[in-house]
């Protein structure tokens, strides 16, 4: 079977010819039926109107000069009752005056008598094309309307003046405004969340070339004490052909259940963390106290064994906290508060934090920040974690006296942050693997480097949850470059707090 374009329906256009001249009626029927149209005939205006009232016609060919009811009267009646029906005038008096008058009254086109079959065909085909386009638009509208209205997410579309073009029932219900239609209203007149009004306004101002979506959380408890729902709101601007924003789609999503699960997961994580870390901490300290000789003399042999035990427990405890970090980050990623951040500042802080370790290994730490770095919209602790992990890795996997460079600069719609070292590097076949959980590069060089294999997995999931991406370039023996791309916060000028 050959592929065919998808047709919603096999539609045969219906045409009515109203003319008192039998010759014309029959000529029309023969020509049009040849083209596959369904053609019906009427001998005068009254009969024509009866048929029109009984059936839908796509096109009506109408003679202007008829006894009893004139073509103009029929035209008026049709336009009054069926404004979408296309009427083509047939007139023996091919005067401009009549034709112009008929067109003014809503006729689509006119054919002067006498006409050739080709002339008729072309005119009718043009009219059919016109009705088909209208039908397609109306079908598409109907499909979209039904789709949007049946969504369990709230959807609203506003135009460039922040007037409502469309709002589905879910949206109205979430906004607590069910009875009246809001189409045509300005958002300030009915939208009850100030934060959302501000965000729609912002979305409209955004540069269409950057990644453009704003999101926030709305806690309904702050509007009504007994409402415990939490909504996630997203605003996406849409563009015209020139790429200019002409309106905003706002989507509301009830995340109450997700938030509850998130909370349960967090509580679980914190309980487990306490239950696991608590005893391990106690054991570590007991070992330490014994090792320090506070509980009596310790022989060299005992000291050696206890030291190894302490090391094992320390790394176990480290692994437990990283595992919990991962669980925590994954649970927090569902939705979290983000703020406008100055990455340059964070880079400086993190570098200062890790400088002692770098100096211990005699590494040179170089920071290069582009002037006037644009802000990003992100979770502060997460971004600190990304940088911290990458810097720690660079320090750990570079033999002494290395050079570690941290660069932050603009890269189109992204902020690019690179952590580059001249250390041992990563083999090609391992470059993808290093982002997997628990994966660690194992060779002679890395044998004595402690780690859990979770750092880069955490980094990757954080970066991706911020709509960013991370890449790795490396040449074994020469070093590695981790490049993190994070979307730039779209509005440079206004300092607006998006979060509570």
């Amino acid at each position, binding site marked *: 079977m050959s592929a065919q374009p998808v047709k919603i329906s096999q539609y045969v256009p219906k045409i009515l010819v109203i003319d008192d001249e039998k010759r014309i009626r029959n000529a029309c029927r023969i020509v049009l039926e040849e083209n596959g149209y369904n053609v019906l005939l009427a001998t005068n205006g009254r009969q024509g109107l009866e048929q029109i009232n009984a059936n839908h016609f796509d096109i009506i060919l109408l003679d202007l000069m008829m006894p009893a009811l004139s073509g103009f009267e029929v035209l008026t009646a049709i336009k009054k009752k069926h404004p979408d029906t296309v009427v083509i005038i047939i007139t023996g008096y091919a005067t401009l005056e009549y034709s112009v008058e008929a067109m003014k009254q809503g006729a689509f086109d006119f054919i002067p008598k006498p006409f050739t079959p080709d002339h008729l065909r072309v005119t009718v085909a043009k009219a059919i094309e016109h009705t088909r386009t209208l039908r397609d638009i109306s079908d598409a509208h109907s499909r979209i309307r039904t789709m949007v209205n049946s969504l369990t997410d709230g959807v609203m579309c506003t135009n460039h003046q922040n007037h409502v073009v469309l709002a589905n029932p879910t949206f109205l219900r979430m906004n607590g405004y069910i009875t009246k239609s809001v189409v045509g209203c300005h958002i300030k007149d009915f939208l009850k969340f100030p934060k959302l009004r501000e965000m729609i306004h912002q979305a409209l101002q955004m540069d269409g070339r950057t990644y453009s979506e704003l999101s926030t959380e709305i806690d309904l408890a702050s509007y009504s004490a007994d409402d415990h729902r939490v909504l996630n709101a997203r605003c996406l601007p849409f563009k015209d052909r020139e790429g200019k924003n002409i309106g905003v789609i706002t989507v509301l999503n009830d995340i109450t259940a997700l938030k509850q699960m*998130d*909370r349960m997961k*967090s*509580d679980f*994580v*914190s309980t487990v*963390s*306490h239950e696991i*870390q*608590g*005893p*391990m*901490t*106690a*054991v*570590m*300290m*007991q070992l*330490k*106290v014994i090792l*320090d000789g*506070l*509980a009596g003399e310790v022989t060299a042999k005992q000291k050696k064994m206890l030291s190894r035990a302490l090391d094992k427990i*320390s790394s176990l*405890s480290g692994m437990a*906290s990283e595992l*919990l*970090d991962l669980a*925590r980050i994954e*649970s*927090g990623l569902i939705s*979290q508060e983000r703020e406008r951040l100055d990455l340059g500042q964070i880079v400086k802080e993190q570098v200062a934090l890790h400088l002692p370790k770098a100096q211990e290994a005699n590494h040179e730490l170089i920071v290069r920040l582009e002037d006037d770095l644009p802000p990003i919209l992100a979770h502060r*602790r997460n971004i600190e974690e990304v940088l911290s992990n990458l810097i720690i890795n660079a320090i750990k996997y570079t033999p002494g006296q290395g050079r570690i460079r941290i660069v932050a600069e603009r890269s189109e719609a992204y902020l690019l942050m690179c952590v580059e070292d001249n250390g041992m590097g990563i083999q090609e076949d391992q470059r993808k693997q290093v982002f997997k959980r628990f994966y660690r590069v194992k060779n002679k060089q890395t044998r004595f480097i402690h780690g859990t294999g979770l750092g880069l997995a955490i980094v990757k999931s954080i970066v991706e949850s911020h709509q960013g991406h991370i890449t790795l370039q490396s040449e074994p023996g020469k070093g590695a470059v981790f490049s993190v791309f994070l979307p730039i916060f779209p509005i440079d000028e206004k300092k607006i707090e998006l979060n509570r």
Partner: protein
Amino acid sequence: MTDKQLILVVDDDPDLVESISMKLESQNYRVDKAYDGVEAFAHIQNEKPDLVILDVMMPRKNGYQLCDELKKSGNYSDIVIVLLTAVADAVASTNYTHLDGKSTLADDYIPKPIDLDNLMQIVHDHLE
């Protein structure tokens, strides 16, 4: 040479309290021990310590509550408080985080697992 400074160690895990105490004693501090917030407050009323090493998650009265009470009281607000926090920070909705620790009136905080040498350094710095 002044009298030895008094440090109150509060944690619901006796093993932990014992280890910290032994280390502190070896550093020439006097040590008092308590195993929950209520007991700790009674000890403080009995003899005012110079510094309290205070766990956060404890039965009866947790570390935050006790810290808050002491810091807002007239008599005890000058006692140095070092909080021990067990939970990874920034967990979206939990109560016991480093961030919460930072927002309390405590003078310092140290995450678990505790590095004893680091804890000694902090104690020493505050009591200098």
